[in-house]
C-alpha cells in the first residue's frame, strides 16, 4: 500500500475544497485535494448557467468558468490533486503514524482508493471536509405510486443533459421549487421539452425570485404553491402525476388533478454528505445535517475542519469560497499551533432555523451565517448576550431561501463572562 504524507488533506475538490486548499497552500503548507470525479470543480461543472463569481471574481460567470478559474489558482499555487480517488475511511488518534504523534496535533489518516493507484494511505496533521451535498430523493419525501422509469432528481437530470448530452424525457413535471429545479425548468425548455408544472408543497417558492422570473415566467410554466404530489402513475415509464391542494393545513383530495407527463424531476432539497465524517466520529447538527463547528470551523475532532455545503447549504458559490478560505486559514492557524483563548456558544433563537458556526471567538470578528424560518418584510434581527441586546439590525426582506450573513466582533462580545450565551433571533 502506498503511503503519503501532507500537512493538510482536503476531502472533495469542489468550490469549497479548492478555496480551503488555496488558503492553506498560500500559508506555506503542503496540501492534497482528494477528488472522486475525474476533474476538479464538483457540482459547478454541470451548472452551466450563469450567475456565479460576482463576489469572488467581480464578474458574472457560468459554473464551469468559475470552477476552472479556481482550478487555475489551485494548480499555480502547487496544490496536489488526486483525481478519480475516493476516501473510504478517516481515522484519528491511535492509528496515526508514530512520526506524527509528537507534534501539536494528533493528525489523521485517510484510506483512499483509485483505479490507477489502488489503495493509498494519506496522513496529515489537518483535514478539511468539503464533500458537499447529495440530493433528497423520492424515498426521502415518500411520494406514493408505482415505480416506473423517468423519475430523476433535478441534479441528476442536469448532469445527464449538460455533461453526458442525454435528454431524459419530453413532458416534464418538476416537484419542488428549489433553485436546481427552476434552473432545470429553463434548461429542459431550451432543449425542446415541455415543462407542464412546478409543484411546491409550501405556500412560497423555495428558490430565488430571479429564478422564478427567468426560468418559469419567461416560459409560461405554471407554479402550483401549497400543492402536494400525491401519486406517480405509469407501469414501465412515468405516465403522469397527481397533485392536490393543501387547504388550511390539510390535503384536499377532492380537488386532486392529474397532469400527464413522461418525466418527473425532484428538486426537494439537499443533504450534506457526511457518511465519512459520521463513521469517523464527527458530531453532526440535526438542523443542518452538517458537523457542529467551533469559531475556527473545527469539528469536535481535533484537526478536522469543515466548510461549504457539507457544513450547511449555501445559496451562492461565492459564499462557499469565502467560507472555505476562512476554514483554510483556521486550519493553517491550527497547524501553526494557534487556537482561540476562549469561545462563546451561539444558538438559534425565535424564527431562526440554524446558525453556523456554533461558537464565537470574542477577541476578533466572526462571520456568522444563519437561515430564517419565515418570509417577512421589515424584519428585526437581534443578537443578545445573556438576554442583553448587543446588536439589532433591520432587514427589508427575509425568506428561508436567502442566507443571512452577519459579523460579530469584540464590540458586541467583549467583556462577557466565560459562560455567556449568545442568541440570534428574528422578529
Amino acid at each position, binding site marked *: 500500500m502506498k503511503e503519503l504524507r501532507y500537512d493538510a488533506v482536503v476531502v472533495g475538490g469542489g468550490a469549497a475544497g479548492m478555496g480551503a486548499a488555496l488558503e492553506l497552500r498560500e500559508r506555506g503548507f503542503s496540501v492534497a485535494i482528494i477528488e472522486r470525479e475525474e476533474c476538479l470543480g464538483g457540482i459547478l461543472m454541470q451548472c452551466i448557467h450563469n450567475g456565479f463569481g460576482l463576489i469572488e471574481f467581480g464578474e458574472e460567470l*457560468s459554473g464551469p468558468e468559475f470552477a476552472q478559474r479556481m482550478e487555475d489558482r489551485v494548480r499555480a499555487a502547487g496544490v496536489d490533486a488526486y483525481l478519480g480517488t475516493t476516501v473510504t475511511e478517516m481515522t484519528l488518534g491511535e492509528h496515526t503514524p508514530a512520526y506524527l504523534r509528537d507534534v501539536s496535533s494528533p493528525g489523521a489518516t485517510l484510506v483512499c482508493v483509485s483505479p490507477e493507484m489502488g489503495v493509498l494511505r494519506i496522513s496529515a496533521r489537518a483535514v478539511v471536509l468539503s464533500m458537499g451535498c447529495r440530493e433528497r430523493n423520492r424515498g426521502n419525501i415518500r411520494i406514493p405510486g408505482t415505480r416506473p422509469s423517468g423519475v430523476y432528481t433535478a441534479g441528476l437530470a442536469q448532469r445527464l443533459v449538460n455533461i453526458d448530452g442525454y435528454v431524459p424525457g419530453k413532458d416534464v413535471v418538476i416537484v419542488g421549487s428549489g433553485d436546481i429545479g427552476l434552473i432545470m425548468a429553463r434548461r429542459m425548455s431550451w432543449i425542446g421539452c415541455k415543462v407542464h408544472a412546478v409543484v411546491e408543497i409550501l405556500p412560497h417558492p423555495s428558490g430565488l425570485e430571479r429564478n422564478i422570473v427567468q426560468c418559469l415566467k419567461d416560459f409560461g410554466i405554471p407554479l402550483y404553491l401549497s400543492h402536494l404530489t400525491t401519486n406517480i402513475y405509469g407501469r414501465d415509464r412515468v405516465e403522469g402525476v397527481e397533485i392536490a391542494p393543501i387547504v388550511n393545513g390539510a390535503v384536499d383530495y377532492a380537488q386532486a388533478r392529474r397532469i400527464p407527463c413522461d418525466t418527473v424531476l425532484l428538486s426537494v432539497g439537499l443533504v450534506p454528505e457526511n457518511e465519512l465524517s459520521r463513521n469517523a466520529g464527527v458530531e453532526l447538527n440535526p438542523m443542518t445535517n452538517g458537523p457542529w463547528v467551533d469559531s475556527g470551523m473545527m469539528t469536535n475532532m481535533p484537526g478536522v475542519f469543515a466548510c461549504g455545503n457539507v457544513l450547511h447549504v449555501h445559496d451562492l458559490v461565492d459564499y462557499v469560497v469565502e467560507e472555505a478560505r476562512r476554514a483554510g486559514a483556521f486550519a493553517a492557524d491550527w497547524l501553526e499551533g494557534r487556537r482561540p483563548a476562549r469561545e462563546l456558544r451561539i444558538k438559534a433563537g425565535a424564527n431562526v432555523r440554524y446558525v453556523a458556526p456554533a461558537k464565537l471567538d470574542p477577541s476578533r470578528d466572526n462571520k456568522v451565517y444563519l437561515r430564517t424560518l419565515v418570509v417577512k418584510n421589515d424584519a428585526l434581527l437581534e443578537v443578545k448576550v445573556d438576554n442583553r441586546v448587543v446588536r439589532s439590525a433591520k432587514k427589508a426582506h427575509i425568506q428561508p431561501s436567502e442566507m443571512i450573513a452577519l459579523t460579530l466582533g469584540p464590540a458586541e462580545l467583549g467583556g462577557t463572562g466565560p459562560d455567556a450565551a449568545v442568541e440570534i433571533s428574528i422578529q
Partner: protein
Amino acid sequence: MSELTCITCPIGCRLEVETSPDGGIKVSGNRCARGAVYAREEFLTPKRVVTATCRIKGTGGAGGMGKPGESAAGSVAGGATALPAGPAGGPARGQQYRPRRVPVRTTAAFPREKIAGLLEIIYAIQVELPVVRGKVLAADLMGTGIDLIAARDM
C-alpha cells in the same frame, strides 16, 4: 398596463408599468431607483444571458438538442435518448471520463424574443477539441454584436 416582479434585489417589489399616449413610460411600485431602470428595460427590451451546450465534433450521429424526437436514436418515450449518438453505453469503467458536450454562453444578455433562433444556431455548432475557455464559437449572433463563447477548457 403590465405587471412585473423586480429581480434586482431579494425584496421583489411588484412593479407596474404604464405607457402614456405620448409614448412615455411610467413605473410604480418600486422602492428604489434601480427598480425603475429594471422595469423600463424588462418592459421594452427584455434580455437574458443564454447558456447551453454544443456538440463535440467527431462524436458522430444525427440529431440536435433542440429536437429530441428527431435524434438518431428515435423517440424518448421509452427512456433516455442519446443526442449525439456516442459510444454505446458511455465510457467503460476505469476509462478516462469524457464529457460529450461543451458548455457555452453568450458574452452578454441577449434579446429574449430572439432566443429560439439563437438556440437553433447553438445546437447546429460542432466544436472541435481541444477548445479553450473564452474561445469565440460564433461571432455577432444574429447581428446583435454578442458572441458565443466556450465556457470550459476541454
